[in-house]
């Protein structure tokens, strides 16, 4: 009875104008994967500096001395200069990988020796979380851990390089 009364009240109060809305879709259809879009060179440089060095790219002067005398004072803009390098190649991924390798050998980054990592799985999980913002799934964790144990070339730096080189990291 109450429902009927409410319906009558609403009907009496309703306006005469009705609206048709076009159907809309929020997000991708269920089950569809989101097609990633690549990071620009600029985005990549900022991200990798933050993730590996914990700082933003900076501008400074690189100086070369010999016998205490300055031979060269070179203005460097890390962001702009590296973007120029990366934009000079159509698919910048090979150069990105190379720059990351250089950063991981730099004075600013300390990478643990493979032998000093007592729990490789924990290290792998930590890097996934740090760089991709998620845990590795079981398949990924097993694959990375197996490579760690079986391939002498796989160590802490390789794990980081592999994750940063991935489409997941290279995507916006």
């Amino acid at each position, binding site marked *: 009875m109450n429902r009927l009364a409410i319906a009558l009240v609403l009907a009496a109060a309703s306006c005469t104008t009705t609206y048709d809305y076009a159907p809309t879709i929020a997000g991708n259809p269920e089950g569809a994967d989101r*097609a*990633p*879009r*690549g990071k*620009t060179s600029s985005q990549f440089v900022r991200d990798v500096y933050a993730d590996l060095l914990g700082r933003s790219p900076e501008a*400074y002067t*690189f*100086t*070369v*001395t*010999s*016998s205490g005398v300055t*031979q*060269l004072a*070179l*203005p*460097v803009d*890390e962001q702009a*200069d*590296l973007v*120029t*390098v990366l*934009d*000079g*190649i*159509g*698919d*910048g*991924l*090979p*150069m990105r*990988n*190379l*720059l990351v*390798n*250089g*950063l991981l*050998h*730099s*004075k*600013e980054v300390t990478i643990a020796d493979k032998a000093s990592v007592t729990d490789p799985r924990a290290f792998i999980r930590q890097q996934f979380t740090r760089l991709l913002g998620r845990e590795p*799934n079981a*398949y*990924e964790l097993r694959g*990375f851990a197996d*490579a760690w144990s079986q391939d*002498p*070339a*796989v160590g802490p*730096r*390789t*794990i980081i*390089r*592999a*994750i940063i*080189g*991935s*489409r*997941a990291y290279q*995507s916006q």
Partner: protein
Amino acid sequence: MNRRSFLKTGLAGVGAAVATTAVAPYGRLCRAAAATTGKRVIIVGIGGGLRLRESLGMAEGATMPNLFGTAPLVPGFGTAAGAPRIAPEYKAPALVLPAPRATPLYTQGTLVTNLRYADGPPGHLQGHGCLLSGYYNKLENRADAHLPVPTVFELHRQRTGAPASDAWYVSVIGGFYRALITSDHPAYGSRFAGVYLQPPGVMQPLAPIIVSGQRTLDLGAANGALPTIPSNPAEDAAAARLTGMLDGNTPAFAGTDATVHLADTDNARIQAHLAELYSDASYDRLFSQSFGIGLARPDHRIDPTSDARTIYHAERVLARFRPSVMAITLLDVDTCHADFNGYLRAQQLADAAVAHLWDFIQADPELRDTTTMLVLPEHGRHLDSNGNNPDSYGRSGIDHGKGDDGDRDVWMLALGPDIKRNNVIAPTGISQPGRGSGRYETIDAVMTAMQVLGHDGAMTSELTAYGARPGLVIPEVMR
């Protein structure tokens, strides 16, 4: 040493601690399998606009003696050519050039002296867009402006299944030119793009310095070596395998992504190539002094010009990847907008660099027997000067773009095993619906290159379907 010269030469020569070892021989990998004709084409576009008057006409002296010798090859601009007429105030720094060839290259191939860049704006992007597609275009100068018809790279890859590393675009200039590596054509596009490389942007010593984290370098210190990016092929391969595992769980990049994404195998090969260059502590692999072309420095070393560095790395790419298609954009002559003498000097350098490239090809038996090289200006320059920076001879800068005969009268030099030798021609009476020039045109040069690769039919079909006038194969050029 200023930043500009540093970017060109690195620290070489700054101090005794800097090694200057010669370039180690580059390892050669087997070329990726591809169903090609086995022939190769290189299109060298002298970008920036080069007039007939100064090149073949030699009105200011023999500026391109390696290509054309020292006697004018077209009438009307002078009867005898001596050394290039460089105003005294523009002679420094001196050019470093090898002695000119005893026999100019035009005698080894075919020279079309009356080619016409017949349509479209005589602008850099449009001119090179034409050289890469055979299509007179009006591309906007935007970084995302792609050609509407397939490029030579896409045609080749789509028809042969060749990997991207079989088709290279090596360009002095970046920016908008990067977009020329792929078209917007729905049946082609970035999945058939070639490899774009801009040596002056990529191949420079700042990258290893920046990523090293070093902000000072004491050349006298025990560890005073130049920073490098260490190369470890085993680690590279291991990282790539793990990356592949991750990528197997990640969707492919969106088809509408503006960035070209090459196959993993192509990128692995390119990365190995770059790793070799950047792991060299002398930085000589970024530009080897043995190339011998550039500007003289007070310490007797060579500053590479952008054109020289580009040709040097084009040779490295040829040696390692042995592509079927390569396009090269030179641009140093474009200094002519404000520096007429720089324009003449850049012609000398481009001439020497192109001859060096041809000699490099001839020294490699496989490349020698399979490579056709076409050299042509992207367009010319105006008939009149712009008054910028007049020199002591009263000559000033020259622009391009308004489309007068100076802008549109160009030439083409073709060399290779399928090209007629000692053949200087200026055909007229060439007819085709829509062709007003009555001459062979820039689009014909591109079509002739495509015939060498067996893609002329496909290029004709695509251009016709788009409503564009396709170029003609130039039979007078071919053996």
